[in-house]
């Protein structure tokens, strides 16, 4: 448990965009991929994924279509739209800037001020 981090508000969407940017995924697949690339460091309640996914669909960043999963079950697959790709780049850059800035601030030593 100690290795897991609570998500900041608003970051779930970015994670979803990232996960889907690597290739079309169904909901459970998104979850698996986030777990896989984060090394299970991020804690996401499974159900919470869906409101976020559907919000992104509504904003036109993702598009969804029904298909058959690797388990041979019907599932809904999500992929990025052109707008979604653009938004993902912007958000990722914004996030990186924020992280860099936060890191600089937090790393500051007393003598530097």
């Amino acid at each position, binding site marked *: 448990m100690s290795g897991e981090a609570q998500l900041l508000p608003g970051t779930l969407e970015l994670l979803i965009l990232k996960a889907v940017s690597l290739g079309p995924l*169904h*909901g*459970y697949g998104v979850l698996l991929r986030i777990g896989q690339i984060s090394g299970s460091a991020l804690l996401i*309640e*499974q*159900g*919470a*994924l*869906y*409101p*976020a*996914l*559907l*919000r992104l*669909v*509504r904003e036109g960043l993702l598009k969804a279509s029904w298909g058959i*999963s690797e*388990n041979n*079950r*019907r*599932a*809904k697959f999500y992929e990025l739209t052109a707008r979604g790709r653009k938004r993902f780049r912007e958000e990722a850059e914004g996030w990186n800037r924020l992280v860099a800035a936060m890191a600089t601030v937090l790393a500051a030593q007393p003598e530097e001020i």
Partner: protein
Amino acid sequence: MRLIDSVRSLFKSSSSTSEIDEELRSHIEHRADDLERSGLSRAEAERRARIEFGGYVRYKEESHQALGGNFIEILFQDIRFSLRMLRKAPGFTVAAVLTLALGIGANTVVFSVLNGLVLRPINVPAAQGLYMIERGSDASPQQSYPDYRDLRDRNRSFDGMVAASIAPVGFDADGNASTIWTNEVSGNYFDVLGIQPYLGRFFHGSDEHGPNSSPYIVLNYEFWRSRFQGDPNVAGRVVRVNKHPYTILGVAPPKFRGTEIFFNCGFWVPMVDQEQIEGFNQLEGRATRGMWLVGHLKLGVSPAQATADLNAVGTYLEKTYPKEDGGSTFSLARPGLMGDMLGRPVRAFLAGLTLLAGLILLAACANLGSLFAARAADRSREVALRLALGSSRVRIVQQLLTEAGVVSLTGGAAGMVGSMILLRWLSVWQPVPNFPINLPVNADASVYGIALLLAIASGFLFGVVPVREVLRSNPWHIVKSGVTRTVGRRVTARDVLLVLQVVVCCVLVTSSLVAVRGLMRSLHSNMGFDPQNVLLVNTDLDMADYRDEGVPLMQQRLIDAIETIPGVKNAGLIDRMPLGLGWGTNMVYRDNITDLKASTSAGEAFTYNTSPGYLKAAGTTLLSGRLFARHDDAKAPRVAVVNREFARKVFGSDQNAVGNYFKVFNGARVQIVGVVEDGKYKTLTEDPQLAMFFPILQAPTSATWLVVRSNRDPLSLTAALESTVRGLDPGLPFTILTWHKELDSALFAPRAASISLGVLGALGAMLAVTGIFGMASYSVGKRLRELGIRMALGAQRKEVLQAALGRACKLLAVGSATGLLLGLVATRVLAFIVYQATPRDPLVLAGVVVVMLLLGLVATWIPAQRALSVDPLLLLRED
């Protein structure tokens, strides 16, 4: 953008619901697949997957919101859910919808009537400035034509002033004469009221040049549609009115029916033609008051200023015509209901009805409140489960409010449809036969608006009740221990509401019983005649243009012919029916009085002109002296038959009266030849009145009622009567009806009161039944387990019943007692309308008690059965 989304998702809403469901389920299955691969059994894997997923309902709803995020879709979802829940509880649904339908329906009807008769201004441009001019201390609307001319020409406050009255005429457009009522109006009528013709033109003041100078009529729109099939070329056609040629000038606009709401006449005719229309010309009779005046105030003149102005004219009239115009004071009243004459009682009655209807709605709401509260208690478990599964309180409250909304709108719609049917029927109803009265009470937009508002308001009023319970409820507690809240012993708001409801119901039942008893009593009271087995033939010889000597000759021929019809016992003539719509009174003086004025008169007596056979045909008992004979004609000394009250008041006793003399208004001495029993002349509720009967040959009149008494079913004589009258003169319009039917006009007010109170009483009773039923089944349902334990421990049926229903019965008793007391007070008001309305009537009191007992029995029967049929074993095994 959001709106478009909302609308779009409206159409795909049901598909998206199932899609979300499918997607979430697919997720759980995928997770379960993985867990199964890690070695769990399938069932265990699925259980674990569901737990890991989190609050399914909550995420589903959130996804929904994420997708459309819209109010409408959730609303539809809630509505569908509500409908499903309501279908599952048909008893509750029917009770709630019916309760509300009754409450809303009653209020819609009462409000429409109020709106049609009182609130809505009459259908005339600038109706605000119109006032009816009333005369004297008793505010009589009746005025004379000479006074009208003086008031019209000498006032400085009115733009214009019109005179109007109504009269029946023989109307013949195509060779068939029939009786039609007409408005006789002054020539300036349409100009002063500002009415524009729908077709053709109107007559004007400038068309009048003395008696019978203006042979024009203007058709009422409805009459034009029904009688002339809306013929666009009707203007210019010549028709016969009482056999005189009259030209149709035009058609009045739709919905214009004059200044008086009740009257609905076929056409308008200038008043200067009174002689041809009514058969006499009273336009020069200053003391002959038979028309009403309506004036339009000048801009900026207040009613008080106008009254002062009219009274200045009144002072002039008193000075100039002291004999006819003594006591000429004037006042203003709203037009529409014959000034205050009809206006005051109508307004008072409607105010009472509105109050009762409001109480009914209140009772309905109280009822619904307790029904919904009972339901909320029943459902607390379901709500708790939904809360535990992650549904938010806001969503549940929203759903409960939706359910309340569905019920209230359904109930409101049902009530509205019912009231529309009733109102349509009321609008075409002719309460008084052969008289152009009807009630224009069709609902308009404001009525629909009010009904909708009432439905929504009451929906939210009682919708809030369960919400409180939801917000308070603790899901863990309820799910764990079941519904075991203690039954409170203290007085709750619900108890107060229920008592209030029983009180309202009991007041209504009491007053309707009092009204019905009064009506029955007035039907069997001594009216001074016996309407049983009597047919009336109403004719106006004037309509067939009989004149002078021709009138009594024809009348005698009619009587003679009718008396030869087999089955006819006697027949007689009278100029106007006692308890009919018109009446005439005259001052009478003792024989020794020489200065004849109001202060020296011995009283005012109802005056009737009759043929010798009338009193016998009417079944009026002769107490002493004799009835008229044929020799009491114009050449013989003037004689009269008076009633007992007259004899007592003028001569001290009935024995003294016969043979004695009295004087009438013109100073003529009249000898009394007989005394008959007292009767009712104007209203059934009047005190004993003076009445006198004169031989028709000494006071000729053309408008008469033939009273035909038979010794068999009077209706079997109708055909013979008709052919007899037709045989004498095919061109004479007449109507035949039973005396009972004719009495409808006298009985109209008490009947209307009884019917409306009866309907409201029935509504109140139904509401009380559903209220008590709701309360009783609620308490039984809540204590079912306790009752089961009691029975298992050996409680008797009586004890179980007492435990289950004691409280409901106690509330019923308290409410009934209070209601009975209040009802007794309330019925004092009824005494003005209903004959001898007294609540101190053992039958009424017993009736109320029996009705309330029956209601209680009906309402608690099912819950009692349920309580008694409790199977302790089954109950204790449950949960």
